[in-house]
C-alpha cells in the first residue's frame, strides 16, 4: 500500500483514527475503573468512604484495612481452607486428567469417541443443575463441611476440561519422537517419561493453573456443601461481608481490602498463563 494512492483521502482517516484511539482509551478506563475503585477504597479509612464526596485518589490512605482484615481471625482459616482444597484439586485433577488424556491421544480403542463426547458434554454441565443432588449425597455419607467432600466434587467438575486441555498438549508432541527413542532401545514407559513428559511440562502447568483458578473461585458448590462459618473458603468468607449490605452499616474499606486479598493471587496466576490462553484461543476458535 503506497501513500500516493491514499493521499487524497488522508485527512479524514487521520481524524477518525484519532477518535478511535480516544474511544479505546476511554473504554479501557471505564472497564478498569471498578478494579481501581476496589484498590482505592481498600486503602482509605471508612470515615473517608462514608463522607459525602468520594475520594478518587488514595491520599491519606494506609494499609490499616488490610491489617484489620487479616487480623480479624476469620481470614487465615478461610485462606487455609482455600489453599488446601485448591491444592488437592490441582494435584488429583492433573494426575487423573493426565492419564485419561494419554489414553485418548496416544491410543485408538473402542469407546474412545464416546468417552471424548461424554467428557465434552460433562464439561458443559452447570453446577446449578446438580448441586442439590450433590448436597444430598454428601450429607448421606457425612462429608458436608469437609475438605474431602468438596474436593471430590471439585475434582470431578474440573477433570473433564483438564482432560480436553491436556489432550491438545499431548497430541501436539509427535509420537515419532517416542518411537525413535524406542528404536534406540528405551521401553515405551521410559520413552514417554524421558522424551514426552519434559515437553509436556508447560501443558501441565497451564492445566494446573486452570484447575487452581476453578477451585479458588468456586462459589456455587461451596455454598451448599460448606455451611458452617468455621469451614469457609475465601469466596464464602467474602460473601459474608456483603450480606444484608442494604440494611446494615458496612465498612466498605475492609470489604474492598478483603476482595483485593482474594483477587490478587488469581490475577497473578491468570496473567501468568494468559499468553498461552490467547494463542490457544486462536487456533481453537478459528477452525470451529
Amino acid at each position, binding site marked *: 500500500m503506497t501513500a500516493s494512492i491514499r493521499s487524497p483521502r488522508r485527512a479524514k482517516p487521520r481524524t477518525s483514527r484519532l477518535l478511535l484511539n480516544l474511544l479505546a482509551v476511554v473504554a479501557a478506563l471505564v472497564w478498569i475503573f471498578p478494579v481501581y475503585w476496589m484498590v482505592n477504597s481498600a486503602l482509605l479509612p471508612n470515615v473517608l468512604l462514608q463522607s459525602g464526596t468520594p475520594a478518587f485518589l488514595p491520599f491519606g490512605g494506609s494499609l490499616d484495612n488490610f491489617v484489620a482484615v487479616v487480623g480479624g481471625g476469620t481470614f487465615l482459616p478461610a485462606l487455609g481452607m482455600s489453599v488446601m482444597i485448591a491444592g488437592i484439586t490441582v494435584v488429583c485433577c492433573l494426575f487423573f486428567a493426565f492419564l485419561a488424556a494419554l489414553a485418548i491421544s496416544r491410543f485408538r480403542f473402542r469407546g474412545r469417541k464416546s468417552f471424548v463426547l461424554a467428557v465434552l458434554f460433562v464439561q458443559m454441565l452447570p453446577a446449578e443443575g446438580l448441586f442439590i443432588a450433590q448436597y444430598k449425597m454428601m450429607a448421606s455419607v457425612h462429608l458436608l463441611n469437609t475438605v474431602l467432600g468438596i474436593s471430590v466434587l471439585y475434582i470431578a467438575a474440573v477433570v473433564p*476440561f483438564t482432560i480436553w486441555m491436556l489432550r491438545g498438549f499431548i497430541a501436539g508432541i509427535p509420537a515419532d519422537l517416542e518411537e525413535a527413542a524406542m528404536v534406540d532401545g528405551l521401553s515405551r514407559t521410559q520413552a514417554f517419561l524421558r522424551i514426552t513428559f519434559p515437553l509436556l511440562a508447560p501443558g501441565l502447568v497451564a492445566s494446573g493453573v486452570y484447575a487452581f483458578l476453578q477451585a479458588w473461585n468456586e462459589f456455587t458448590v461451596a455454598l451448599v456443601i460448606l455451611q458452617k462459618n468455621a469451614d469457609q473458603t475465601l469466596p464464602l468468607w467474602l460473601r459474608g461481608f456483603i450480606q444484608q449490605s442494604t440494611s446494615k452499616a458496612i465498612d466498605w474499606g475492609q470489604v474492598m481490602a478483603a476482595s483485593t486479598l482474594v483477587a490478587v493471587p488469581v*490475577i497473578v496466576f491468570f496473567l501468568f498463563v494468559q499468553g498461552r490462553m490467547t494463542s490457544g*484461543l486462536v487456533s481453537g476458535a478459528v477452525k470451529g
Partner: protein
Amino acid sequence: MTSSEASRSSALLTGTGLRRERAVDDTLAPRRRTRRRIAPYVLLIPAVGILVIALGYPLIWQLITSMQKFGLAQQFGKPADFVWFANYIALATDPYMWTVIGRSLAFCFVAAGCTMVVGTLFGVLMSTVNRGVRIVLQISMLLVWAMPVVAAMTIWTWLFDWHRGMVNWLLTGMGLDFHDHSWLQNPISFFAVGALVVIWMSTPFVAFCVYAGLVQVPGEVLEAAEMDGAGARQRFWGIIVPMIRPILAIVLLLQVIWDLRVFTQIKLLQDAGSIASETNVLGTYIYQLGTGSSDFGTASAVSIFVLLLTIMLSAFYVRSLVREDDEP
C-alpha cells in the same frame, strides 16, 4: 463448573496441536499387543471413577427423586412415594415456574446480546488502534477478565451501594434524584445491575476472541476493498463479519449457555438485600427449593430441566469441538 471468568477464558483453549498419531501396534509382540489393548482402559479408570462418584451418582439420584414426592417428611426418614411425572406436571402448570423461566431467558438474551455487541466493538477497536493504545485496552480487559466473581460482586455492590455508592453520587451530581436510591429493591433495576456486572465480566472474553479472529483476516483483502471504494461500514459487514462468523457463533453460544445458568451474581445480589421470590432465576430457584424449603422432588425436576436445556444448547458447541478432534 462455575461461571467464573477464568473458566470462560479457557473454554476455547482447545486444540493447540491436532495431529492424529500413528498407531504403532503392528510391530509389537503379541503379549505387548494385549497390554496395549487394555492400557487405555486402565488409564481411564481414575477419571471415570471420580466422574461416576461425583456426577453420575447424583445425576441418577436426581432423576429418580424428580419423580418422587420428596419433601421435609422424607428428610426425616419417611419413604418417598413414586409419583412419576407429577412434579414435572406441577411445575409446567405453575405460573411462578414460567415467570422464573421467562426471567432467566430475558436476562440471558439481554446479557448475552449486550456482551456480544460490546465485546465485538472492543475486539474491533483492539485491531484498529495504535499499538500503545491497544496494549492499554488489553491490560484493562485482562484485569477485568481475571477478577474472581465474588470479588467482582463485592465491588459492584459497593459501587451501587444505596448510601455512599459511586453510582448514586455520580447520578445525583448530574442533577438526577438518586440520593440514597436503592437499586436492589426494584426487580427491574436489580436485574439491570446484575446484567451490567455480567456484561462487564464477560466482555473481555468476547473481545479477545474477536480480536484473535480479526488478526487472521488478511490486511490485503481489506485494503483491496478500501481501494474499490468500500466504506468502513461495508468493510465491516461485508468482509470482517463473514470472516469471523465461526468465532462469533461459538462465542455467542457459550455466552447464552453461561448466562442462562447465571447463579453467583444473582445470589449475591439477593444476599445484599432484595426479595428473592421477585428476583429468582432458574439457578437460585433450585437453590431455594432445595436448601430453603427442602422440596427435593421439585428441586430435582427443575434441575433436570436445566440440565436438558444445557445439553441441548451444548450439542452445537460439542459438535464443533469433536469435529476438531477428528481433523488430522
